[in-house]
């Protein structure tokens, strides 16, 4: 006892410390003002989608990042949450159950956790590849079965609803998209807060321990299966909330859409891209998911190619996701060494531009030949007219690409060197502090 040096107050959770207040207020402000800045109706749907996808990706990360469980079937809990939510809305709309719309996401959440309790009981008995494969199997089963039960899942058309029912809530009908957006935003904020809080609870910490070394956990008194199971249920709950919000947002839920393996895959992909190691990674992932799914496919027919390329390069060069890139830079900044990189970052961006432009121009021309040849040989690419039948267009694009590549590589080499130096200095600095 004499060794006690720090008072209990040192650990106390102080919800109102300055850093937290700033970060969470910023998050809230972003949620509030975003639709005021991006006003088009597409932007508004995209923002709404981001809102609930943030919840879903974060819930997925409870499994992947915090529990080391690679699930291929997360869409099951999101989707079933959506279905129950939409049925609840329809019942409420018919006056069956008096559930106000604002509570519908909770219904989704309960449904999500219900199914997580049901399926999780078998899936979480195992971990690793076995776990992954069971979730894959259950995902496929649920997705295929859904089409066979049109009574509940509405068949191909899915189930529709009207979110405007009941008495207006303080004059809010939830008809207009921006009211729905704010509903989603409020849920997004609260759920993010709750999930963040979860990381600081005993279960959350033991979950990390299970991820790192399940065997040892058994020898400090915990049943690993139980830990995984509880985490799975919690993840299912938040997934269901996300699903419920999606149902409100679209007013239609559809088995082919919300339960398939591809959906599950994209939660995995983007959680990872955002960065599974850090709590906030999946938030970035969710935002990217919406951009990739909605915007990219509208900007270009070659979206899958770009997507594949970006993805392969990201995994190869930034396996910790975007969050880890940010954290690496923050670390450099903390040691006051970020300044020397601004110039290089600028140069990287500048040299990357021609590479991207050149490559994109070529890709777009190829796609144009294949998909849009009915519209003639010319296409509009960033306000420039390219002609797939002219040598100059191809040559020009290739030239830009090659020159850009050369420059980029030169800058990259320099960057890698300097970055290495900076890391070295930081390591040395850390050692020094440790000694002190």
């Amino acid at each position, binding site marked *: 006892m004499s060794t006690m040096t720090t008072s209990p107050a040192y*650990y106390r959770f102080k919800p109102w410390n300055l850093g937290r207040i700033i970060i969470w207020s910023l998050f809230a402000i972003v949620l509030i003002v975003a639709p005021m800045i991006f006003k088009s109706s597409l932007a508004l749907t995209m923002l709404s989608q981001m809102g609930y996808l943030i919840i879903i990706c974060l819930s997925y990360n409870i499994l992947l990042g915090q529990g080391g469980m690679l699930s291929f079937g997360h869409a099951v809990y999101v989707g079933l949450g959506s279905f129950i939510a939409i049925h609840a809305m329809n019942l409420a709309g018919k006056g069956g159950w008096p559930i106000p719309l604002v509570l519908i996401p909770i219904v989704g959440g309960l449904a999500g956790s219900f199914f997580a309790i049901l399926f999780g009981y078998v899936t979480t008995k195992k971990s690793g590849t076995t776990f992954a494969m069971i979730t894959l199997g259950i995902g496929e089963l649920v997705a295929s079965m859904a089409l066979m039960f049109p009574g509940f899942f509405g068949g191909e058309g899915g189930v529709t609803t009207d979110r405007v029912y009941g008495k207006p809530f303080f004059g809010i009908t939830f008809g207009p998209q921006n009211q729905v957006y704010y509903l989603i935003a409020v849920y997004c904020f609260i759920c993010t807060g709750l999930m963040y809080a979860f990381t600081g609870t*005993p279960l*959350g*910490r*033991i979950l990390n321990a299970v991820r790192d070394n399940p065997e040892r*956990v*058994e*020898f*400090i008194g915990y049943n690993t299966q139980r830990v995984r199971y*509880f985490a799975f249920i919690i993840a299912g709950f938040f997934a269901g909330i996300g699903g419920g919000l999606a149902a409100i947002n679209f007013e239609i839920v559809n088995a082919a859409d919300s339960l398939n393996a591809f959906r599950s895959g994209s939660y995995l992909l983007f959680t990872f891209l955002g960065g599974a190691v850090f709590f906030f990674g999946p938030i970035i992932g969710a935002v990217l998911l919406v951009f990739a799914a909605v915007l990219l496919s509208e900007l270009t027919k070659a979206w899958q190619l770009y997507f594949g390329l970006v993805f392969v390069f990201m995994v190869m060069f930034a396996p910790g996701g975007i969050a880890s890139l940010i954290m690496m830079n923050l670390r450099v900044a903390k040691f006051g060494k970020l300044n020397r990189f601004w110039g290089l970052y600028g140069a990287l961006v500048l040299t990357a531009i021609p590479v991207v432009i050149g490559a994109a121009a070529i890709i777009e021309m190829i796609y144009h030949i294949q998909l849009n040849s009915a519209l003639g040989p010319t296409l509009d690419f960033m306000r420039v007219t390219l002609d797939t039948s002219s040598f100059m267009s191809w040559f020009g694009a290739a030239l830009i690409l090659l020159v850009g590549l050369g420059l980029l590589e030169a800058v990259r080499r320099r960057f890698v060197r300097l970055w290495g130096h900076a890391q070295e200095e930081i390591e040395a600095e850390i050692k020094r502090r440790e000694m002190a």
Partner: protein
Amino acid sequence: MSNVQNKTHAIELKGLRKSFGKTEIIRGVDLAVEAGDRVAIIGPNGAGKSTLFNLISGRLAPTSGEVLLNGKRIDGMRPFEINRLGLSRSFQITNIFPKLSVFENLRCGVLWSLGYRYTFLRFLSNLDDANERTEELIHQVGLGKKRDVLAVNLTYAEQRALEIGVTIAGGADVILLDEPTAGMSKTETQHFISLIKQVTVGKTLLTVEHDMGVVFGLADKIAVVVYGEVIAFDTPAAVRANPRVQEAYLGSAVADAQGAGH
């Protein structure tokens, strides 16, 4: 029933046997360790010492026989159930949570025993008793300076210390240590023995060791396991003098070990 009359032992093994496939590794072990004793288990490589630990701690289920902890049968129970009854063990090959900090590693070890089970409705940072206990532990095992370092980044000796720390964190009163000093230099070993002694005051301790210096420095009693059987269980002096033990295990190295006695 017999327990009622007999004095209950901290650990009691009765006719314990374990086979892997056709090979019988543990061939009928009877052993009773009294509460508060420090017992060292020695024996040739592959004799079954670690296997014995695995059987006691629930990592393996015995083929036949009984394991009793404070008079209660525990064979066939899962490791976490046994742990909850107050038995904790360390591993021959370091077995900690690599991506958690030293502090978190220890706190994980503390949680269950303080009753914070699968709770997700309270913040760790508000669990004063857990934090105090962890803080105490961290100083006990001498890792105070490495509080927030991830376990992977510790040196080997520090990891071994952490391993012990996680083992004793739950406050178990029966502790099993499997070759706790393996791979350490002499200085580190000496330091470590005193650490172990200090943190296991009043507890029942079983260790497996090959380093005779450690064995003789730490143990009140020595059990010699050869080929899955306990061939001797006695005081250090008696064991050292036992010709069968010399034959089977010590060889001429006895002299060496005596020379190295601390």
